């Protein structure tokens, strides 16, 4: 599974690069200087909601708020609720938890153009205090044959972790932006009940020393760079117009090639 995720991430990175590098060559617009406070954004993670909607065994539903500085630095605060109810595949055991979590961090926009697209690398520090339940209705002493249902409730846990993010976002329409990122998460601190570790940590994911995660953010950006000239929306009319203009300007004259051929070959 880890190999599959690693390959997915490599694919993802390979998909980022051509889009960005290709575009930087094509766009020959003059650079626009972004103001110090370039915008304020509020976003919601669609991935967590989708996972909850399709009945995934766990989901992190979160919103974020961020500030844009010079269109380069984006201090960000994320808050969410992690929810998990997991039934054992071959057992009747059930693990469940639901608790809030917080992350603070910063994104850096690698894209040098102020054209609406952002290629973001970032870091987050996440923390959560939570309670988790574990039950085993068929808990049996295998030697003495005594069955006594097990129900452990309100076990306390506390986790902190570090995240490295790689993401891309683009302007969809007006102040609406769509972006996604993948995250490599490293646990830095864990304090859990001695009875057993939680299966899932809110905000982190499946409990381990490290794991991968991701989010798809729909963000509403308000600020000076939200509607700057030259910014392209993915599904806007302006893009089509600009494309047709570019085609007209860059189209080579039709008669050049045939004339050259005529001169050479007669």
């Amino acid at each position, binding site marked *: *599974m880890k190999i599959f995720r690693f390959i997915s991430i490599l694919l993802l990175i390979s998909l980022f690069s051509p889009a960005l590098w*290709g575009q930087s060559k094509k766009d020959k617009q003059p650079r626009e200087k972004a103001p110090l406070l370039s915008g304020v954004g509020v976003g919601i993670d669609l991935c967590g909601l989708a996972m909850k909607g399709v009945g995934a065994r766990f989901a992190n539903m979160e919103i974020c708020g961020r500030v844009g500085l010079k269109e380069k630095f984006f201090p960000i605060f994320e808050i969410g609720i992690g929810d998990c109810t997991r039934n054992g595949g071959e*057992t009747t*055991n059930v*693990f469940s938890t639901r608790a809030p979590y917080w992350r603070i961090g910063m994104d850096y926009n690698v894209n040098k153009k102020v054209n609406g*697209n952002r290629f973001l690398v970032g870091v987050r520090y996440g923390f959560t205090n939570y309670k988790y339940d574990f039950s085993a209705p068929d808990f049996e002493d295998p030697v003495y044959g*005594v069955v*006594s249902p097990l129900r452990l409730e309100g076990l306390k846990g506390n986790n902190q972790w570090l995240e490295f993010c790689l993401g891309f976002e*683009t302007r969809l329409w007006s102040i609406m932006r769509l972006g996604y990122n*993948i995250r490599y998460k490293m646990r830095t601190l864990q304090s859990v009940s001695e009875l057993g570790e939680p299966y899932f940590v809110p905000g982190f994911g499946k409990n381990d020393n490290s794991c991968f995660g991701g989010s798809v953010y729909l963000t509403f950006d308000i600020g000076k760079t939200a509607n700057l000239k030259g910014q392209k929306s993915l599904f806007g009319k302006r893009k089509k117009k600009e494309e047709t203009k570019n085609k007209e300007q860059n189209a080579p004259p039709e008669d050049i090639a045939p004339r050259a051929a005529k001169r050479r070959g007669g």
Partner: protein
Amino acid sequence: MKQGKGLIIAFFVTLAALFGCDTIDCTLDNTVVMRCSFFKDGNAVQLHDLLTITANDTNIVLLNSQRDASYIKLSLSYFNTEDTLVFHVTGDRYELTDTLWIKKTSYNHFESPDCPVNMFHHITEVRSTHMYIDSVTITQPDVNFAEHENLQIHFYSSAD
């Protein structure tokens, strides 16, 4: 346009990675047993006599006709605060019975909903009768996955 296509493809790749299959990592060596080593005159020995151990309150046979054992592994009960084990030792010229009482506290241990739940123990007190057993000492009170030596059972040097 290429950018838009790349965005959409990468979006679905991300979804596939997030919703991908999962692995179950349960501890393979997941038996919880109390390990008792045998001693005579301060030295580790093999017990050449025939040894059978039963749980006194249920008559469950925990160890059946073991010979030449230098140590034994016994399961403790999950829900009793004290286990009573009866040692039946049968030699060439004798047949003796000793009782061993083990007081303990037990607590659950779980790893994942997919893995079986275990019970760990902490031995607090051990006492016995002295027909064949001279003394019993606790060397490691915690009984868990790590199969440490928990008890040293010292037998009399001769049963005669």
